[in-house]
């Protein structure tokens, strides 16, 4: 159950003659949730953002810091940017693993791997404290970066062990041959779910013709947001008239295993879920690579008086955009464009992916699988009607 202030998606699907019909999505997101950031200092606004939008707190904090920095005409130094990459990768690992260990097993009627997820959360949820002991990781310009090598190394070792055992049952599959072996022999709930999709002919279920979100011209994006007086763009975004999807599949479509699955069964359930697993493994490798060369850094002083700025990051669920306007040293306007608004757009990947697909004996179960594969950042309510 969601709280009114947290927002919710109301998804209404219909079935006729055994096929899914047009779905209707009502986005109950509180569009004015950032309005009360106006009047605050940039530092206070960024801290509040990380407390309020805490589902992907680190991505939100980094996007907020970068928006403020751009408003000041600054950017954080290279070392700070590396540390932020580390934070984003850590959050991505935790979010993707949460889907594989918690949400997906429950959809498949299996018990979630709570002990494994708890161990992983213990390793990664406080990662920012090992990098920024003063807790100022979200500070515009960069916080007091003082990485503690030994605890960091221990956290990463724990994360690798938990993910290896509980998600992959060994090494992560990275190419079609190892993927086929994994589906055939691995005994984790994740492998069983995906092998089951293949056996049931659901690998391509939900394949959508909605294209992936391209790189967005930052000037055009800032202009579009600045003109969005009623919030229509951030609640129902398009780019030059087209709706797009964003997230792990958009980012990993060129990876050999994901590309092979796309070629075989299209951008359906299997490709969406495999892309998340591929990204889970690659984000962990990226963390290990960055950890080896992180060093101390004090950051820059950053407190813009006037101007506007954009912060764009790839969060676990897709591209996240923050925009801030500053006047007389205070925030005068704050906007967030979140990935859920692309993927759960009334004409987006979920609606397009369901339309005309076979509903089977359990249409609600199939719809929930596709919703989970697209991974909304808010709770949802699903209703099913016979057309």
């Amino acid at each position, binding site marked *: 159950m969601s709280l009114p202030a947290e927002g919710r998606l109301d998804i209404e699907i219909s079935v006729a003659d055994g096929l899914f019909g047009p779905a209707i999505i009502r986005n109950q997101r*509180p*569009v004015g949730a950032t*309005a009360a950031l106006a009047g605050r200092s940039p530092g206070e606004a960024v801290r*509040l953002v990380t*407390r309020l939008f*805490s589902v992907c707190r680190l991505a939100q904090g980094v996007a907020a810091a970068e928006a403020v920095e751009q408003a000041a005409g600054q950017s954080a130094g290279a070392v700070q940017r590396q540390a932020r990459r580390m934070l984003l990768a850590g959050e991505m690992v935790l979010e993707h693993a949460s889907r594989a260990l918690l949400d997906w097993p429950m959809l498949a009627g299996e018990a979630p791997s709570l002990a494994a997820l*708890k161990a992983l959360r213990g390793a990664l949820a406080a990662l920012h404290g090992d990098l920024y002991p003063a807790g100022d990781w979200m500070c515009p310009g960069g916080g007091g970066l003082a990485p503690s090598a030994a605890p960091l190394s221990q956290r990463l070792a724990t994360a690798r062990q938990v993910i290896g055992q509980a998600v992959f049952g060994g090494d992560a599959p990275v190419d079609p041959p190892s993927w086929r072996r994994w589906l055939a022999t691995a005994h984790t709930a994740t492998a069983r779910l995906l092998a089951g999709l293949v056996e049931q002919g659901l690998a391509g279920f939900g394949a959508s013709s909605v294209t992936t979100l391209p790189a967005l011209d930052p000037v055009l994006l800032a202009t579009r947001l600045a003109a969005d007086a009623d919030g229509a763009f951030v609640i129902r975004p398009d780019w030059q008239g087209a709706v797009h999807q964003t997230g792990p599949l958009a980012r990993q479509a060129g990876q050999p295993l994901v590309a092979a699955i796309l070629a075989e069964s299209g951008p359906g359930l299997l490709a969406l879920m495999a892309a998340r697993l591929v990204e889970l493994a690659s984000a962990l490798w990226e963390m290990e690579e960055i950890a080896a060369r992180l060093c101390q850094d004090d950051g820059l002083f950053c407190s813009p008086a006037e101007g506007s700025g954009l912060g764009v990051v790839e969060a676990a669920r897709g591209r996240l955009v923050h925009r801030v306007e500053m006047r007389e040293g205070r925030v005068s306007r704050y906007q967030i464009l979140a990935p859920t608004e692309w993927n759960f757009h009334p004409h987006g990947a979920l609606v397009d992916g369901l339309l005309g697909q076979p509903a089977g004996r359990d249409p609600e179960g199939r719809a929930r699988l596709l919703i989970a594969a697209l991974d909304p950042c808010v709770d949802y309510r699903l209703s099913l009607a016979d057309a």
Partner: protein
Amino acid sequence: MCMAIPSRILRIDGDSATVECFGVERVVSLMLMPEPVAIGDYVLIQSGSFAVETVESGAALAALDYLRQVLAEPDTANDVA
């Protein structure tokens, strides 16, 4: 929009707790919590029904105060079909 609002623990029953926020009560699992919790603590809920972390009361109250301001605005809610 990726919001997780701190909820206050009203009752604890083994591995689950009843929490409250803005007058809404819900039962959540404590099995992902990294440390023991007590009645009156504020926690964040994820994946619908799992408490995942404690929020220091000052930070929780600041977030709730902010959201009270947001909810008081008449055009906050949204419904785009």
